[in-house]
């Protein structure tokens, strides 16, 4: 191990997306993270595809595994008496607790912040939820897919002549996890300085809106209500996704974004000064916006006769252009490979499997994927004895009374 968060102890009592991803950041900079789970309410991601070789199983989902790499796994049913004893030890042990239940659930489990703080006065607890711990919609429960709609992203995805679309999946989760990790790290700074813990209330909707701040301010300045516009942009033209020659029986697309007049000049030059681009009115953004339909048709005609690689090779490095990658394209992208984003780790059930890695490189203290995700309860013995200090006979008792759980296949 070894990292800037060495010695930080995290109880990850969360599930699904934001909470586990937040804890994963901490794990990969050196924190010891114990992820608790129960077979009574299995993390929905363990039951969600893609599964290794397409075969479902609690320990076969890479959707789950990726979000829980580098953590220790403890299977415990927190609603049993034994589970409550384990929870008390975890609370005393941890610097940080992360939970992601619908507001009120932790209180009902007897694990609300006030109860935990009575055990550990300087505890930091992160509660991440859809709409926050207070307010009329505090009880709003659900998945991130609907939060993309509530947070404005569905209105902004798709075509102006059609119903709203959506970014793929639980889009706002991947805004929330970044702010959640920032909040926890900031709270650790505060605690290092003052000794004081705190209960962080994070609403995923409130983090999501940070990414629409320009549109929300624009509405106040100009009255404009932003909506979906295909791939067009009010500050750039041409700006779109264009068809290329199919490859391997699959359609291929290229993204081209002319974000300044100099890039328009560079585009014309790269294309060999075609007649369709000669109109001097095209030298300005407003001129290009007026003729955008025509420009898009002409550009599509040019790209359609070429491969993605030919188009990008012709336009870069002067004109912003790049392949529209599918999941296989991400695996073969030379830049992604150069950055070492996919990092294989051996998993007891799934075998050697790549894990998504660092989005940032730190020159002295790099982000480390230290192990594959735990099987459900894989590290029970080690966590209960070495970390939490239970004696061997106490562990046997916890197992016998069904408080501790394990699924190893």
């Amino acid at each position, binding site marked *: 191990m070894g990292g800037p968060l060495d010695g930080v102890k995290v109880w990850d009592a969360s599930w699904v997306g934001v909470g586990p991803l937040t804890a994963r950041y901490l794990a990969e900079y050196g924190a010891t993270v114990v992820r608790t789970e129960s077979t009574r309410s299995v993390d929905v991601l363990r039951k969600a595809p893609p599964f290794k070789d397409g075969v479902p199983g609690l320990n076969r989902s890479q959707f789950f595994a990726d979000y829980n790499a580098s953590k220790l796994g403890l299977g415990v049913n927190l609603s049993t008496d034994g589970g409550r004893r384990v929870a008390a030890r975890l609370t005393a042990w941890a610097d940080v607790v992360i939970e992601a239940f619908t507001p009120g659930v932790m209180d009902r489990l007897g694990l609300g912040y006030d109860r935990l703080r009575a055990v550990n006065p300087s505890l930091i607890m992160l509660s991440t939820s859809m709409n926050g711990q207070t307010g*009329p919609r505090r009880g709003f429960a659900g998945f991130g897919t609907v939060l993309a709609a509530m947070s404005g992203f569905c209105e902004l995805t798709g075509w102006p002549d059609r119903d709203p679309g959506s970014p793929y999946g639980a889009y706002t989760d991947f805004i929330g996890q970044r702010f959640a990790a920032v909040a926890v790290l900031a709270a650790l700074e505060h605690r290092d300085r003052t000794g004081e813990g705190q209960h962080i209330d994070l609403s995923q909707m409130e983090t999501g809106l940070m990414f629409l701040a320009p549109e929300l301010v624009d509405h106040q300045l100009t009255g404009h*209500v932003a909506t979906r516009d295909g791939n067009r942009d009010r500050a750039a033209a041409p700006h779109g996704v264009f068809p290329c020659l199919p490859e391997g029986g699959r359609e291929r697309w290229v993204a081209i974004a002319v974000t300044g007049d100099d890039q328009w000049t560079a585009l014309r030059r790269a294309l060999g000064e075609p007649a369709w681009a000669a109109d001097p009115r095209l030298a300005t953004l407003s001129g290009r916006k007026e003729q955008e339909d025509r420009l898009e048709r002409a550009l599509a005609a040019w790209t359609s006769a070429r491969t993605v690689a030919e188009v990008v090779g012709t336009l870069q490095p002067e004109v912003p252009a790049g392949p529209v990658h599918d999941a296989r394209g991400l695996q073969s992208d030379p830049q992604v490979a150069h950055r070492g984003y996919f990092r294989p780790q051996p998993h007891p059930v799934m075998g050697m499997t790549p894990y998504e890695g660092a989005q940032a490189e730190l020159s002295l203290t790099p982000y480390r994927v230290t192990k594959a995700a735990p099987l459900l309860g894989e590290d029970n013995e080690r966590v209960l004895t070495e970390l939490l200090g239970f004696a061997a006979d106490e562990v046997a008792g916890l197992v016998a009374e069904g408080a501790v759980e394990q699924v190893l296949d």
Partner: protein
Amino acid sequence: MSGALAGLRVLDLTTERAWLSGRVLADLGAQVTLVEPPGGDPARLDRRAGAPPGRTNPAWPAFNRGKRSVTLDLARPGARELFLRLARAADVVIESYERETLHGRGLGHAALSAVNPRLVLVSVTPFGRTGPYAGHAAADLVVAATGGAVWTNGDPDRPPVRISSGQYFLHAAAEAVVHTLVAVRHARRTGRGQHVDVSAQLATIRTLMNAVPGPYTDGSVVDRASFGAPGPGQPYRHLFGCRDGHVLATVPFGPGPAGYVGWLRDEGFLPPALAAYDAGRLGSPALAADDPSFPELLTGALAGYFLTETKVELTRKALARRLMVAPVNTVADLMADEQLAARDYFLTAGDLRVPGVWARLPASPLASAGHVAGPGADNETVWRDEAGLSAEELSRHRGEGTI
């Protein structure tokens, strides 16, 4: 109470792509100072087609509130020495130049750490500072495409689409703060700063959830599919029109079909064909599989009812029934949202309301001050009091156009 990062000093050299990073650090109590060209960053102004001259770029107040501003023309001789004066007293420098501008001016990480070994330099760029695409030109759409976030979106009969508002540099800018805080912690403990090199392309891949691992687990690749309609594994449509727009309703959640049937009954919209289903049938997990006509029967009735209600009313009524219905909100809806209002979410930037309180840290609350500094508003304080220039020196640099 003060912010969690009180005392942290940040120099913000970013372009619009990463203004958010400094905004988040300032929210947490850091002292963040924009370093702009004399006369101000041209990106303070709205450069979209049709914008009248002089109008503010809406992203400026949103992401630069709470920062100080000094001016410095980094291209002028002598500017390097002046910048190093600032860097000596800083903890963090953030930049997002498209090319290797800082390095080219002799202000790369090695040069900065020579004057201040604990300094953390943060770069937020499309592809990162190393690798075959490091010199490529990019834009939000290109980052979205190369990070896989375009392929999965849109209707099959048209090209795939991005989100119609720049997103992926914001992912990188928010991501940068996570790693910056890690590096700051390391520097505080060891006295050694480092270079934090963020890739927007990789931050984009991180948003793709279970669409990423397909090729190395079950061989699957996620392609775009029309949104809201029923599909494989998803028997119920979930996008519906309503009186003032659209809502999303996820039928298989919480009380499920029985909850929706009860709702339709209470509102007087239950068709006889649905009334014939008893609680046992409605509660069966195999309902849609055993009775393939049921999903269309239920969602057809819901579609009729939803058209009579607003987004806000449908969301409220569904919440009371523990059903998952969400409004497809516009920015206008969001500014009026009752939950955000109840939580006093919006902050001020001058006379504008901007998002917002992105996390509640009761022991170290986010800064509420919403000042938007003019270009060079803090020149006197910073250059004279902090960097130690004499009045004569400051005057000379101003006269030469460096400050």
